[in-house]
């Protein structure tokens, strides 16, 4: 069977106003408009969202777990980025 498969889209849904879009899954569709309609039917049948983004899966650049170590390493030794790093003298308020 020779045929061209519809491209894969990743679907992001905003559950409520005030929340960010979250990845919920993926689907196949020939174009963006149908991807949106399919996403509505597939991922929001029970009012799970107020807004949907669809992104062609090929347009996403991912950091691969294989590079995880080196890639996220720079963050590991910078404990001073966290407020808990600092000693606060007794009695200091609103800090």
């Amino acid at each position, binding site marked *: *069977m020779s*045929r*061209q*498969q*519809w491209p*894969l889209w990743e679907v992001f849904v905003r559950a409520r106003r005030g929340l960010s879009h979250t990845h919920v*899954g*993926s*689907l*196949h569709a*020939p*174009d963006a408009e*149908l991807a949106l309609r399919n996403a509505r*039917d*597939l991922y929001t*049948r*029970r009012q799970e969202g107020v807004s949907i983004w669809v992104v062609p899966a090929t347009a996403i650049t*991912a950091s*691969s*777990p*294989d590079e*995880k*170590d080196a890639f*996220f390493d720079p963050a590991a030794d910078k404990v001073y980025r966290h407020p808990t790093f600092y000693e606060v003298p007794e009695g200091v308020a609103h800090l």
Partner: protein
Amino acid sequence: MLPSCNTCPVYGNDFGIETPDDGGLLRQVEAAEEELRHAAGRGLGAPLADTDLQEYFDRVVGADQKIEPRDWMPEAYRRTLIRQIAQHAHSEIIGMQPEGNWISRAPSLKRKAILLAKVQDEAGHGLYLYAAAETLGISRDELVDLLLAGKQKYSSIFNYPTLTWADVGAIGWLVDGAAIVNQVPLCRCSYGPYARAMIRVCKEESFHQRQGYEILHTLSHGTEAQKAMAQDAINRWWYPSLAMFGPPDTDSTHSAKSMAWKIKRFSNDELRQRFVDMCVGQAEILGLTLPDPGLRFNEERQSYDFTQPDYDELMRVIAGEGPCNRQRIDHRRAAHAEGAWVREAAAAYAAKQHQRLEVAA
């Protein structure tokens, strides 16, 4: 597990039955979801450059963390998951047929609307699961071809016919009920995309089980003929539903490895027993009888003794000799072939729009 309704926490009770909320299956789904969020917090660290891949995989699984698509995984783990998730997805797609059979003949507009929504859900479940399988490196087209060629299986239960309206009720109560018992532990599966898909599926599936139970409850409180119809449906669907849990543990081929990989959490027989224990009380409230003269409570085990389904029949149905095997797959092939022009037209339209954009740019 006490015989309780799984759906109370999310759906209102509209047919006057007291169903205590004592840790139903939906609770377990929520717990699995919560667990999924917390698992990541148990720091395991990233694999170092010289970490053995197999060892790291074992450590992640051992710590109840999730394996994700781009992680290294043993080839047999990948193959097992593809086989299981695909079979599961195919079951949802083929599973639309027995109930779809009654959409045009549902006894009221309300029942028709509900059944349409339910069958649409099954399609949705199939699509979540196909998407999960695709993350393992197999394409949607390959999966569809494998189903149509009969090279991958779907659940044997869908090879039984829906002869009366009460069968729609029995499918919802027993078949979806058995599916939920099977699937709730899968919400904790070690493969992330499958676990996430199962959480979605289980949450929706509980509406299905409840609507089936309501159909049977209505029939069993109707005329004598209606009650008899409900009883007849249960008589026909009970043993095939028990068979859905697969062969007994002593004959199960895939179990041990899947348990070690935390794809599977409980054995076929454990889940079958759990299902029987749940159903007995529910059948009593329906005022209907489970067709098993050997069914009785075992004080010692605090569980029901029951008659095992006919596993030879199960094997025959799996091998293609069930009452509807041919019909189901023929129908799916025809539907797929008849939809080809729609897929082609949509692809052609998309290509044309794309071309126009490029010319304009």
